[in-house]
């Protein structure tokens, strides 16, 4: 027995568990159930419900098993008469003023109070007084309704708000018998993670307004699926009844989400039944718009692409995929375009990320064992909310330090031990300087907004750490700064005293998978570069095209100049999401053929010649790779008559002579396992419960960046940083969304100095101008960025912020009074 282990006896069973384990958890390991209400393994002990009383030898009182650490040679008894009497007594107290609501209660059927009463409770009550009455439906927020009568004051929700969310938004009010859950001044409880209190509530007090009285829990068909919003890929359960979407619940997976999901995951799925869905295929190729069977549309699309490729050469067609697609969809599309159509004009993004990392690719759970978390240019709170919770967890429990290196202030700064803010556009220079300092050379940090000392203190933190997790957001890094960052990562990796790994935290569902699947103009699946012709041929066959393809933005440019004739866009909306929005619409209009394969009607699908329906998350099966490189299975739950995406792609490939038959999405997964390096172990079985981390893609050693090149370009205007906002009003969260109360008005964040120069004050209406694009916004003078920059959160599609951005994402803007 190791030093950190303890042996004890529970109900005549001798067990050995790690020191510090609570008795209730120790009992669970041998299948002895001690009933609890207030205890939750992620929240820790409180001991207020008194349900877990057990008898411990040599202790006069009954002890609460949830607050008591195991001790050596402890003898615990959970079934003695005394314990049973206590359990009955406590349950009688708990039920004293709990309404007999079970037939109408939404928790009925999955209610710990119901279960415990059934197992341990008294059969009857002696209470013959009028039960206390209270408010039956108090809206805590537009999406959470609180039934005050049902609350048993276990304080799980308030502790969640305190311990996990770290903001104490939800608190206990009043005293004694009158105590109740509420917020200060009755403000709505509308944080980013508020929905989790519904899952942890052991009674039906906190209810999901969406699901309220809609169905009984046992009537639901639950499918274990993944969230399809950000790159965290949190595990969740999709409840469906009679093919109607009912609710979403979290499904704990410690490798991914630690048991929580954000509000966008819980309530951001109204698009599953949106009016805006593309339900059938349509074509305008023969003149007027007409609908046609999906099969015919797929064939027509494939033939039309082939025809143009034959006439103008394979370079005249292109594919823009989506970091929101599943691995299967992405793999099949790149295979279709490379093998059947012979082009490398394949891309899925507008930022400069490359597959692979110079240091290990860390799983999200590695953060827990790190003692330093370095967040670079990422805003987890808005981009990857569950990652934010994980970082808060390790930092607030004192297990790790947090360093933030960013060009805008984020909510993470509140927890950071060191927070450096460089000027917008100076990322490359700062990374180069830090890399040089680490390599022992002189790091130049002039005109970057941070000082040499600050850089040194960051370096000291890195050097004194034993294990570091670096989280960076490639999508927020403009120009070539991603390359410089990778050079920096390799320099950090050289610190011998420290283990380190990185998490490329792009805020898209399957951003890592898209890189791995080779939806890139210059890499084949698994990060095999075009330059390595041998490897490519070995992997993908002799006929694989080897000439470099066009990136997404290059394709748009070529479309504008007429060199690109046909484009297939899958689940992407370049007209709004790509920098320079308006120009992109013009370019797309010049194409001979635009095929859009999407789930919802978008500005791009309006321009398309052929539109194919995509079922998307909630309907289709598939696998995705999260930011930590974990491959998980995303199951569909709702049925639809339309063919799943992978089948439509397979139909197109078959039209062009491909002979592979895929029976289910897993047939494609099996092919991925065979063909894509790093995915060899992925199979239906291996990713079943917890998912499986794939081996990181191969990394091409980058060259040391030219410091002159990374010098930020001088310009007159203010440098623009487009920030993210979790609840942006876009196609997914449309006007009918339940989260509409979270939508924000367009706001531009200015530094005090700049505001003074421009004569602006808080609340002024302004127009942010770049070229011929104008964006209206309200001024907020905050320290969100250094002088010389503006931060403009993207809050809706209509706002059109990406119109302001230049082709490489960098742009200067002018601010005028409206």
């Amino acid at each position, binding site marked *: 027995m190791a030093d950190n282990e303890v042996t004890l006896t529970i109900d005549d069973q001798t067990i050995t568990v790690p020191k510090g384990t609570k008795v209730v958890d120790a009992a669970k390991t041998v299948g002895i159930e001690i009933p609890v209400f207030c205890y939750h393994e992620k929240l820790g002990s409180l001991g207020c419900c*008194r349900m877990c009383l057990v008898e411990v030898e040599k202790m006069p*009182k*009954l002890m609460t098993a949830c*607050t008591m650490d195991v001790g050596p040679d402890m003898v615990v008894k959970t079934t003695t008469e005394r314990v049973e009497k*206590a359990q009955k007594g406590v349950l009688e107290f*708990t039920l004293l003023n709990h309404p007999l609501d079970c037939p109408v209660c939404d928790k009925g059927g999955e209610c710990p109070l119901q279960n415990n009463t059934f197992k341990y409770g008294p059969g009857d009550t002696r209470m013959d*007084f009028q039960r206390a009455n209270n408010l039956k439906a108090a809206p805590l927020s537009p999406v959470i309704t609180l039934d005050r009568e049902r609350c048993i004051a276990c304080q799980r929700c308030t502790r969640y708000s305190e311990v996990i969310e770290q903001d104490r938004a939800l608190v206990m009010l009043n*005293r004694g*018998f009158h105590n109740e859950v509420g917020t200060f001044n009755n403000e709505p409880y509308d944080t980013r993670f508020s929905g989790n209190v519904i899952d942890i509530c052991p009674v039906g007090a906190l209810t999901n307004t969406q699901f309220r009285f809609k169905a009984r829990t046992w009537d639901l068909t639950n499918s274990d699926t993944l969230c399809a919003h950000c790159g965290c890929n949190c595990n969740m359960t999709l409840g469906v009844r009679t093919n109607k979407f009912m609710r979403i619940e979290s499904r704990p997976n410690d490798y991914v989400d630690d048991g929580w999901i954000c509000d966008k995951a819980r309530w951001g799925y109204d698009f599953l039944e949106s009016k805006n869905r593309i339900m059938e295929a349509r074509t305008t190729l023969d003149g007027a718009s007409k609908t046609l069977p999906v099969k015919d549309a797929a064939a027509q699309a494939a033939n039309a692409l082939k025809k143009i490729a034959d006439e103008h050469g394979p370079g005249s067609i292109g594919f823009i995929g989506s970091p929101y697609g599943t691995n299967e969809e992405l793999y099949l599309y790149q295979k279709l375009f490379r093998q059947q159509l012979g082009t490398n004009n394949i891309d899925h993004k507008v930022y400069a990320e490359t597959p692979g990392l110079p240091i290990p690719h860390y799983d999200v759970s590695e953060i827990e064992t790190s003692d330093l978390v370095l967040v670079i240019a990422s805003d987890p709170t808005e981009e990857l909310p569950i990652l934010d919770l994980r970082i808060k967890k390790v930092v607030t429990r004192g297990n790790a330090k947090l360093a933030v290196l960013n060009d805008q202030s984020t909510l993470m700064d509140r927890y950071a031990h060191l927070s450096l803010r460089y000027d917008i556009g100076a990322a490359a220079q700062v990374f180069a300087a830090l890399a040089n300092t680490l390599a022992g050379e002189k790091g130049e940090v002039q005109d970057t907004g941070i000082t040499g000392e600050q850089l040194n203190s960051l370096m000291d933190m890195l050097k004194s750490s034993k294990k570091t997790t670096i989280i960076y957001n490639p999508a927020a890094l403009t120009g070539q700064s991603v390359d410089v960052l990778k050079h920096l990562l390799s320099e950090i990796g050289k610190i011998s005293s420290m283990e380190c790994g990185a998490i490329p935290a792009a805020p898209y569902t399957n951003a890592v998978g898209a890189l791995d699947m080779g939806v890139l103009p210059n890499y084949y699946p698994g990060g095999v570069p075009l330059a390595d012709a041998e490897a490519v041929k070995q992997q993908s066959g002799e006929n694989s095209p080897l000439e470099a393809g066009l990136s997404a933005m290059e394709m748009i440019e070529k479309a504008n100049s007429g060199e690109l004739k046909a484009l297939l866009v899958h689940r992407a909306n370049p007209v709004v999401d790509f920098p320079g929005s308006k120009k992109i619409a013009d370019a797309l209009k010049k194409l001979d053929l635009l095929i859009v394969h999407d789930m919802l009607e978008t500005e791009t699908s309006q321009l398309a010649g052929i539109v194919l329906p995509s079922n998307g998350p909630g309907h289709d099966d598939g696998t995705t790779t999260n930011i930590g490189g974990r491959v998980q299975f995303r199951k569909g739950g709702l049925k639809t008559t339309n063919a799943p995406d992978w089948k439509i792609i397979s139909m197109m490939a078959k039209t062009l002579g491909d002979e592979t038959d895929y029976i289910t999405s897993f047939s494609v997964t099996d092919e991925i396992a065979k063909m894509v390096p790093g995915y060899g172990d992925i199979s239906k079985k291996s990713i079943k419960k917890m998912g499986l981390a794939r081996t990181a893609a191969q990394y091409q050693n980058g060259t040391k960046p030219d410091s002159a090149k990374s010098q930020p370009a001088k310009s007159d205007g203010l440098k623009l940083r487009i920030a993210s906002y979790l609840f942006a009003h876009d196609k997914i969260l449309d006007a009918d969304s339940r989260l509409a109360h979270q939508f924000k008005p367009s706001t531009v964040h200015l530094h005090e100095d700049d505001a003074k120069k421009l004569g602006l004050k808080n609340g002024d209406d302004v127009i942010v101008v770049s070229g011929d694009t104008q964006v209206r916004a309200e001024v907020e003078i905050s320290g969100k960025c250094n002088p010389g920059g503006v931060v403009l959160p993207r809050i809706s599609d209509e706002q059109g912020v990406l119109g302001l951005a230049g082709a490489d994402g960098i742009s200067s803007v002018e601010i005028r009074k409206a």
Partner: protein
Amino acid sequence: MTQILFKDINKKDLHTLAVYEETGGYKSLKKAFAKEPDEIIEMVKASGLRGRGGAGFPCGLKWSFLAKDVFPRYLCCNADESEPGTCKDRELLLKNPHLLIEGMILCSYACRIETGYIYLRGEFYDLCEIMEKALEEAYAKGYLGKNILGSGFDLDIHTHLGAGAYICGEESALLNSLEGMRGEPRMKPPFPAVQGLYAKPTVINNVETLCVVPYIVNEGAEKYAAIGTEKSKGTKLVSVSGHVKKPANYEVVLGTPVREIIYDMAGGMRDDNQLKAFIPGGSSVPMLRADQVDTPYDYESLQAAGSMLGSGALIVLDHTVNVVETSLRLVSFYMHESCGKCTPCREGTRWMWQILHQIQTGKGEAAHVEELLDICDNMSFKCFCPLGDAAVAPVASSIQNFRADYEELLQRMTANTV
């Protein structure tokens, strides 16, 4: 009669520093600073001083339990005296605030504490002003602040007014309240001596306990230990209230029979009525019968008699009282003051109140008495903090000792309604 705390209590202007020094105040500091801190802890241990707040935990032992080598440490003086019947600390704070300050300085020196807090009950705002003034005087004279009397020892003392919750007299709830959180008791372990205020080692003592320390330092542990009984040393302030002729605070040598306190000190029963029952240690302890009036007033004897010394509030009831009403009154207090954290206390106190109220208003049934006993059993020692046990004490003991009262009331009321 030995008087330690109340020696000069009625001296005019004792609350001013000048008068206090006249009576020999702050003399102990020099003596203490000449010794090692640990020696003082040993002295307090040797004196046999036990906590006067209610639990009666040996004071010196408590000080020696502080987590080793963890600094800063804090001292909290528990002046949240809210127990029904108890008003001893109030008199000390009102008339002799400097004695407490002196005691706190000694305790802080012994435990190497540099910050002290006096947590005053919310209703004590007038005492808070007196205390503030006394602290000001002490700072001006150099008894507080940096380098006290050239000893190199620093101490700051702050006052803090509670918001009016009985539960904040519980030490860990007091810490929560002091930190600005809800006044709810904390989980133990960790005990405050290990992780208390701001998660640092903390000593929490009652006003009376701290006030005794100067005497021990001045006169030596042996002299203090000579007072009282073998296990209960020293004197105790007893707040005598109820149906006596002279209700007041009396300083009593531990071991004095209760009869002596009631009949000699407090002048006997009002109107020379017959003694029916008495609660020896504040509302939180079980009540005793008249035939137990010869019990010596000390920790052990009262415990043997089935009650506790508690905070030292002797509530005397004469034969005109029906104990059901007493229980109802006390339970309604506990129902009002329960913090609501744990289920048995939150729900149980209200249920007991409902039943007692029903019995009192004549709607009771015979089965209710047994039901009350069972509720008491389900609550006692199953609550998060001692408040639940305290709420049970008057009800369980009144049924145990005066069941006839309940039956009489039930019968009378049933007769009336029929």
